[in-house]
Structure formats: C-alpha cells, structure tokens
C-alpha cells in the first residue's frame, strides 16, 4: 500500500492515479505499452473514433513551433468497427480504464458510435470530442456552438449509461458557458482543453507549412492558456474537470490540479518521452509526502486566490 493515496475520482469514474493519456497521442495503446506498464497509469483515451474509418488529411500534418507543435491529422482513425475487432483485444489484456473518444460530423453519428461502443464492456467511459479544429465538418463548428454541444451531450447520454465526458474547445470566448450546458444536459465531466487553432507559413513557397492550412497547437506553449480555461470552468461551474494542455512534468500536473482539475491528460509529451508518466508518479508521491497531503485529490481546486 502506498502512503499517499494517488487515486482520484472524476464524477462516477475512479482512476488509480490522475495521469491519463490523451486522445490522439497514444494511438490504441500497443506502441505505448513498449515504453510503460499500462497497468500503472490512470487511464487511456483512444484516438478519436468515427463511425467509418477516416483517411485523415494529406501530408504535411505536423510542424514544430516555439515550445509547441501544430497538427492537422484530420481524425485519421480505423472506425468503430475495426476498433472493436482489432484494437480492443489488445487493450483488454490490461487492467486500465479505457475511455473511448468519439468524433463525428453529425449529431446522429455521435449517437450511432456511442450506441455501438457502449455494448463493449471493456470501455469505461466516453470522451466526446466536439472540438477538433482540423476537420471541415463537425469539429470547430460544434465546438463553437453552445446549443450543438448541449444537444450532443443530451443525445449521447440518452444512449449510454456509461459516464460521458465532453472535451471542449479553447477557441471560444467563454469556455465556462460550454461547461455549463454540458452539466445541464447531464454530462459527467469536462476535458479541457483541446488544441488552439494556429498556423505557420513557409516563407519561401508562401504555402502553409501544414497542408490543411491551419492546425491545432499543443505542447508547453499552451499550458498557461489551458490552466486559465480550467480555472474559469472551476470557478463558474460545478463539474469535474480533466485538465489537458502542455503538461511536461509532475509540477505541471500539480499546477493543473490546483487550478481545478480532478485528473489530467498527457498529450504531446508522449511523443517526446513516452515513459514519462511512470517517472512522474514517483514525483507526485514525493510532493504529497513533503506537503503532508494524504490524498492527491485534495489538491483539486485548492488554489489560494
């Protein structure tokens, strides 16, 4: 038994520790399993799944920026069916909560995906991506439309008894308004944030460096923005928050929890140091011991303002 209790609760969900791996940055788990013991982390969020397989955007899909990266993958994924057939069996070998991230072009598609996936008992919860900046239909249109987000939450909730987390876009005036409607419509938690819309140009060809023109900015560059969004939600709406954005080390995790997160997700860092989560668990424990914190969940929203 640990001296420090690292387990956290996000609404009805229990995680053995606050470190989840973010959608689109862990694939479907198999590659990551070569670097870390998936049984040790809090949870895994799958790459966004759509009803049918998606090819995604043509290259170039990524570019580095100061302390960040832009991506426009375009939700390339195997689709719900192949996921269930070919990807789930691997994940079932592990005792780690599996959150299925769903992205869709229509409200009906969200519902359809959820209906199919909810039958699979290996799936603990859904994360509804209403905020992908890199696809033409759906994506940002939904992310910027409060009533669409409300509707999606309501409809998805109506077809599953599993917890529904809604992943919000930071590219809005007041993210807390979106969190409010999610709560109203029965959503169980908020994931914040998805990437910021950004772009970059090649000064020789004058073409965008990313074929899709704009991409989503992630990495440490966006950490201050992500923290402010988490804080805004925490101060305005009573709903559990999973904090995401630019986490690079254990200190960042503590910062996100202080700002209001019940758990966090690691994204871009997985590309750089896929073994990092395990190292960070140790440090989280030390921090708690040093600060006489028995349960790490006591940190959530413990800011002194």
């Amino acid at each position, binding site marked *: 038994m640990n001296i420090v209790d690292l387990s956290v609760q996000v609404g009805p969900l229990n995680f053995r520790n606050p470190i989840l791996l973010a959608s689109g940055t862990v694939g479907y788990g198999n590659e*990551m399993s070569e670097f870390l013991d998936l049984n040790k982390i809090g949870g895994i969020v799958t790459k966004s799944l759509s009803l049918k*397989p998606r*090819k995604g955007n043509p*290259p170039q*899909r990524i570019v*580095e920026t100061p302390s960040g990266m832009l991506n426009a993958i375009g939700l390339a994924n195997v689709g719900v069916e192949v996921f269930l057939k070919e990807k789930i069996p691997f994940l079932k070998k592990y005792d780690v909560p599996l959150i299925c991230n769903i992205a869709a072009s229509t409200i009906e598609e969200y519902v359809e995906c959820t209906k199919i996936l909810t039958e699979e008992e290996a799936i603990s919860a859904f994360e509804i991506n209403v905020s992908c900046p890199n696809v033409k239909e759906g994506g940002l249109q939904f992310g910027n439309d409060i009533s669409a987000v409300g509707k999606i939450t309501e409809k998805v909730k109506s077809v599953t008894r599993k917890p529904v987390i809604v992943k919000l876009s930071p590219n809005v005036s007041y993210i807390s308004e979106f969190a409010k409607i999610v709560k109203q419509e029965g959503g169980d938690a908020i994931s914040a944030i998805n990437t910021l819309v950004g772009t970059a140009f090649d000064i020789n060809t004058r073409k965008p460096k990313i074929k899709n023109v704009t991409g989503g900015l992630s990495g*440490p560059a966006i950490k201050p923005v992500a923290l402010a969004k988490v804080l805004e939600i925490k101060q305005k709406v009573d709903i559990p928050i999973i904090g995401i954005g630019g986490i690079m080390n254990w200190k960042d995790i503590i910062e996100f929890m202080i700002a209001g997160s019940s758990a966090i997700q690691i994204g871009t860092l997985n590309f750089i140091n*896929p073994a990092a989560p395990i190292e960070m668990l140790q440090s989280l424990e030390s921090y708690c011991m040093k600060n006489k914190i028995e349960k790490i969940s006591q940190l959530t929203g413990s800011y002194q303002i």
Partner: protein
Amino acid sequence: MLVIEALVDKVIELDNQIFLLKIHCPEIANSIKPGQFLNVRVSENIYPLLRRPFSICNVEGDYFYLMFNVFGEGTKILASKKYGDSIDILGPLGNGFNYIGDYDTAVIVAGGLGAAPFPYLIKKIEKGKNIISFIGGKTYREVITHEMKNISIATDDGSLGFKGNVVELLNEHLELLKKNKIKIFACGPNSMLRALKEFCLINNFECEVSTESAMACGFGICQGCPIESTKNQDKYLLVCKDGPVFNVRDIII
C-alpha cells in the same frame, strides 16, 4: 524499441560540413538494422521540443554513428556535442532495408544527405554480392562518398563527375545494370525518388527507397507521417512504422 540515455563519444566533421556523431550504446548498436532510424532528443531542456529523426549511419561494436549536416536549431545543437555528454535516444525505429535476398548486385543510389543510411547497409550486405554506388548532389559540395563502394558521381552543375542528376547517371549505366540481377537501395530528396521510381518501373528493377516525413513521435502514435499507398488509397501508410523503407512500387511519392 526503447528510450535510453547514451553517451556521446565524439563528433567528427567530414568535408562539406557533414558531421558524424559517434555514440556509445550497446543496446541500440546490437539490435538496429540498416535503414532503421532513431529519434533523438538533442537537448536536455524543452528547446527544441520534438525529437529529431536520424537514420542509423553505421555500427562499430557497441558504438553507432549518425550522419547529418547543420540544418536548423536541432542539428546545430547536435554538432556541438562533446565526449561524455549524455544524449537521449529512442529506437530502433522503422523497418529497415531488405538486403538479404535474391540479387547479385546492390545498387546504392544516394542524393545529398541520402547517403546517411548506406555505410551500415554496405557493411551488412553479404560478402558474395557486388555493390556499386551512384551518388548525386547539386554541386560537388553536396556529394557525400563516406564509406561508399565503387562510386559514380553526378552533379547538377557538372562540378564533379557526370553533369546531370543521379537517375540520368543510372540511365547511362543501363546496360551494365541490366546485365546483373540488381536490387536498388535509394535515399534522397523526393524529386530524385520520383524519377527513380519511373526509371525502375520502366526497366523493371527491384528498388527499395528510404523516405522522409515530418515526424512527431517516430513510433506510430501521432499519425503525423502519412505517405500515400498504391495498394490501398483509403488509408495512408506511416513513414515511421510502415517505412521509412518502402518498395518503390508501394508508395506514391
């Protein structure tokens, strides 16, 4: 596939501002295959943020070599490494060349820094086979012949060897190539690979090319490195996982 702190032995500067980085790392040196690559964290801090992919250039005992030129911030930092520095390596990555097989002559085709993966490939090709190398560059300054064998050179400006591109040079040697059961191993800019593909299709030559792409992870989780497949147009291949080496017939360059 592992993440490991390795020790820099030295940085060797060849001609033309080309650098060799020699690294002590038994784990990688003893497991990596020609054509595979490594994703290197060039600094200890978050600048630059992403790892940089480099082909395995050569292996000597417990040491391996990378070959690069100073291109941007990352390679600038790499070039300044010194004996005893530690360096964070992720790999081995990708598939590597299929160099064991039914051919009698390996034809190396390299454009510019496309030379990087070949010293190790040449070392590993079995004794019985012939090796001939065709090396191209814009000018003589871009021609890298380090540890190549039976070299023919082409430069766009004619400042060294044949005047023209390296595929035109291959064409000059068409008769010789056709006389043997050859397999072509190529690496270089996309324009070269594209011309080479046509050349191989016309002449029905076996050919494997090592490709490049912008990459974030290098091991298949970010989907950042797609390349169009000829076999299934509904799905991209991934350069980092399905490649970086492809049968030239399998990809649209």
